[in-house]
């Protein structure tokens, strides 16, 4: 288990050895902040000191941003042949999967937390509810983990990064749309209602929303954590030869 540390360290620092990290962080912050200030975000109009308008877009933003981080996780190792090096070092596949996933997750968490000046601005303009801001951050980071689990898995299925990106996007989009009533209605048309309802339970939106309202419901936390656990388990299976 302590073999996770070197893998984590190499992967996390690896983001900063290439321009990837800087391009990503700048793009993420620019997009997230401009969406919040946009007509649809209404950060100013809200007239209240809150960060809801900042976080409501996160499920959408993550849809594109997390596959961009996750696609290289395994595809790159497979393509360049370093997978052969990694898996002939004295580590288990689980060590490698956990180390790499945690590094990606930490990087995404860093991106999310870099928006903290937004929170300070809100605090300067008014009296925000710090509790709600905190649950927003917790929710966003948990959701990032859920997305990344899916992307790590799809990345392990191919050595082509473009294929990996597209697969991740489709898989994450499916998990996102399950939460939309119009989409669920379509599902109810073709599937038994009980099944459609059960499927709707797997949506990122359904489980992220309570966090934006300041509620940490254990069932949402369990959802994201078990999604992470399940995708990582499949990730190990996919890498076993």
């Amino acid at each position, binding site marked *: 288990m302590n073999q996770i540390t070197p893998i984590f*360290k*190499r992967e996390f620092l*690896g983001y900063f050895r290439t321009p990837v990290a800087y391009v990503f962080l700048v793009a993420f912050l620019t997009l997230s902040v401009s969406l919040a200030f946009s007509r649809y975000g209404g950060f100013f109009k809200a007239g209240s000191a809150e960060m809801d308008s900042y976080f409501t877009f996160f499920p959408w933003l993550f849809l594109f941003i997390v596959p961009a981080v996750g696609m290289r996780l395994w595809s790159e190792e497979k393509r360049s042949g370093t997978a*052969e090096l990694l898996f*002939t070092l*004295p580590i288990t596949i689980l060590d490698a999967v956990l180390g790499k996933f945690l590094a990606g997750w930490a990087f995404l968490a860093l991106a999310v937390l870099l928006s903290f000046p937004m929170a300070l601005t809100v605090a300067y303009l008014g009296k925000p509810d710090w509790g709600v801001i905190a649950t927003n951050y917790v929710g966003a980071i948990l959701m990032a983990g859920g997305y990344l689990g899916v992307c790590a898995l799809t990345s392990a299925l191919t050595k082509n990064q473009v294929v990996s990106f597209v697969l991740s996007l489709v898989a994450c989009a499916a998990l996102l749309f399950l939460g939309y009533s119009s989409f669920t209605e379509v599902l109810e048309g073709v599937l038994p209602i009980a099944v459609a309802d059960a499927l709707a339970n797997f949506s990122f939106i359904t489980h992220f929303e309570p966090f934006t309202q300041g509620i940490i419901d254990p069932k949402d936390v369990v959802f994201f954590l078990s999604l992470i656990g399940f995708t990582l388990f499949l990730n190990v299976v996919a890498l076993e*030869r």
Partner: protein
Amino acid sequence: MIEVNGLVKNYGAKCAVAGVSFRVNRGDILGFLGPNGAGKSTTMKMIAGYLRPDEGTASVGGIDVTADPVAVKRQLGYLPENAPAYPEMTVEEFLGFIAEVRGYRSTAAKRSQVDFALARTQLDAVRKQTIETLSKGYKQRVGFAQALLHDPVALVLDEPTDGLDPNQKNEVRALIKSMAVEKAVILSTHILEEVDAICTRVIIIAQGRLIVDETPAQLRARAPGMRLDEIFRDLTRSKV
């Protein structure tokens, strides 16, 4: 030290390795020969625990690779074909990472291991250079440095002298020879004079099957007066 018993590996319908058996003792340097596509790399990947054999077993120091892969990987130094490495890391960072995974966690232990590997492969001059900017021969040496960093009891080297200049080839051969005293070494190669120069035993495989397992002297004695590459050609041709 390294024991291989009836290894079989199929890629779909294609049989890459069809029942190869041999053993390598401490002090042996085994030259692994065979035409392109013979199954050399596939066999080595199975010994190193990267590929799971379809049949047969490979063991290092008495430990079966499929039973306890991590224990085998701990004892083994493995240089994959084309010496893959993380291109964005510097030589020092990369070897530092290998040292950490190999259990040298303290700064001092890590440093001494990295310095040991750098010195043995004469990479000191490029230690701060990123791997992607190195020439092919230097990349190859980084791969070699990575394989011997923990001073393993067994070394599996897939074309270790590929891409090296004549001087470096001789350096690496001398290094392998000096290390082999207390190690078991397998190296694959396409250079027959290499076998003559350092190997204590030769194995030739063709189409996944073992066709020769003897000393270089015995191989020569098969056709006195002929060059080694002529002997190699006759042996591998007759099987095709």
